[in-house]
């Protein structure tokens, strides 16, 4: 059986992969695409235990990756994964992710806790987690709209000492009750 197509004329040059022009290094987008299977489309996670990365500050991402790599920050998978990438990769990925649009999550939150958290954040946290968590000073992470289950895991790790808290943050967090901290996590998760 012989099939007859006449695609050839059309094909000329259109999609040839032969070398000739300058080879380009992989783009930041290609690097970050490799993370999407776990962190979601455009940095917005569809699963509440995995953090969204969209709109995260570049510094926070670079610091997080370095701490994952060194083992200073506890992790399930990221400690292994971070060892497969270089500091230059972290910077390129952080740069791109920081420019992605905030992923506004829809999650079931306790309105009373959100209100309580709102009343606490300015005095205690806003020096570093600024604008209701929409911005981060230096390497302080953006937390607005982050998944509550993810935030709670992180706060628990700080409290049980497996994740090392920055000293100045500890000064604020240590005296607070678990209920207040839970309210704060609800608040940050609610910010759109």
């Amino acid at each position, binding site marked *: *059986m012989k*099939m*007859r*197509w*006449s*695609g*050839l*004329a*059309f*094909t*000329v040059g*259109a*999609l*040839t*992969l032969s*070398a*000739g*022009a*300058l*080879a*380009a*290094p*992989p783009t930041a987008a*290609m*690097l970050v*695409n*490799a*993370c*999407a*299977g*776990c*962190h*979601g*489309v455009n940095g917005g*996670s*569809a*699963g*509440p*235990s*995995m953090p969204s990365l969209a709109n995260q500050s570049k510094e926070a991402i670079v610091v997080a990756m370095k701490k994952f790599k060194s083992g200073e920050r506890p992790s*399930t*998978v990221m400690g*292994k*994964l*971070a*060892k*497969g*990438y270089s500091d230059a*990769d972290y910077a390129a990925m952080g740069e791109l992710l920081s420019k992605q649009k905030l992923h506004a999550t829809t999650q079931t939150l306790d309105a009373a806790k959100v209100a309580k958290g709102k009343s606490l954040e300015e005095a205690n946290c806003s020096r570093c987690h600024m604008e209701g968590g929409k911005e981060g000073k230096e390497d302080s992470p953006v937390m607005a709209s982050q998944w509550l*289950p993810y935030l709670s*895991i992180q706060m628990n790790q700080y409290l049980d000492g497996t994740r090392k808290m920055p000293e100045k943050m500890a000064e604020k967090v240590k005296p607070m009750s678990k209920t207040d901290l839970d309210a704060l996590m609800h608040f940050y998760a609610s910010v759109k």
Partner: protein
Amino acid sequence: MQDFRGAHFAAQKTGGTMSFDRREFLKATAAGLAAAGGGALTGCTATKHAAHVVVIGGGFGGATAARYLRLGSAGGIDVTLIERQPGFVSFPMSNLVIGGAKKLEDISRGYDGLRAHGVRVIHGNAVAIDPVGRGVRLADGSALGYDRLVVAPGIDFMWETVPGLTAEAAGPVLHAWQAGAQTTALRKQIEAMADGGVFAICIPRTPYRCLAAPYERACLVAHYCKTHKPRAKVLILDANDDVQAQRGLFMSAWSELYPNLVEYRPNHPISSVDVASKTVRFEFGDAVKADVLNVVPSQRAGAIARQAGLVTAGNRWCGIDWRTMESLAHPGIHVVGSATLAAPMMPKSAHMSNQHAKIAAAAIVAPLLGRVPSPEPITIAHAGYSYFDDRNAAHMMSVHAYDAKLAAYRLVPESSGVSARRGEAEGKHAWAWAQNLWADTLA
């Protein structure tokens, strides 16, 4: 000089509709074919047409390729996806359905997300490829031309490795190694099994798709039996000499969670299967008669890859250039997913197929954007999660970097490994991972 594809795109575009009308398309194709055969077709010059990429197979590899081709070219490439099934059912998480913790709907998705990106989705069966004339023929007789082809057929079964079983005459002996009707059917068999019954799963020699999945399935069936059929038995009959993935994690789950339920027997390559009596015989050791017999045959690249001469290795897998995923047998054709001849230590899995597709899409899109694909394709991260019951899971993680000397990807050892222990936190991550992987493939 023109070709029939030019005709069909022109026809479609002047029709003023973005949505794909299959009848129109086939008519246009037929007209185009006739015109091309008959000589010149006037009106449009070749360079004005968008390039056309056809993708065969709408699993993790094919669907991701279609999605990234549209996204990466900002809609500049016309993409047609050919898929046999009406919808997408995920193999990852399908063991939760078999164990009764989830329903088939929970792991099923549609192709509307891809359509919204402008992918034409054709539900049909690609039966022939002409790599020289660059065309694909479907079972219904219709034909499609392409500039580049992505072949993502997944796996087919090597029935000859399980004498007594064939695709047509397997009767109640299921594989459930492609998610869908068999997943539900196997679940029903397990539900119908009497307390005190035997569920046996036969595992082929490596390589097969999803190394950890047979052991996970045994756990989830055992988890169901523990409460519903406590006197049942789950037998794992492995052709290999040991557990092939997450060994320590599975061994401890079997002894800690299912001590009198699960029994693992290595070195059990099948010699024959008797469908009527649900009995398996082995090259060594005693025959096993089961109440529910689940035989996973050995696997190779899907039929269309073999038909098209893309299989280059051991009569089973498709060799490719890892920088572009382009076939070593035929230029212009990219093969992604489980049908490829794996690089060293590279698993055949959903997440890996999803990553292959991005390499192929980047390579195909590059020349359109005036770029040449990087000599060093990106480092890829891969994960898989296994459940040990309905809540506790563990991961396997690996990072694969391109090695120019090897001309293939190699494992980055420091980045690869498994969880120290199963846990509920990772059970949540596993489900979150599936949501994100489905979204990255289809959303």
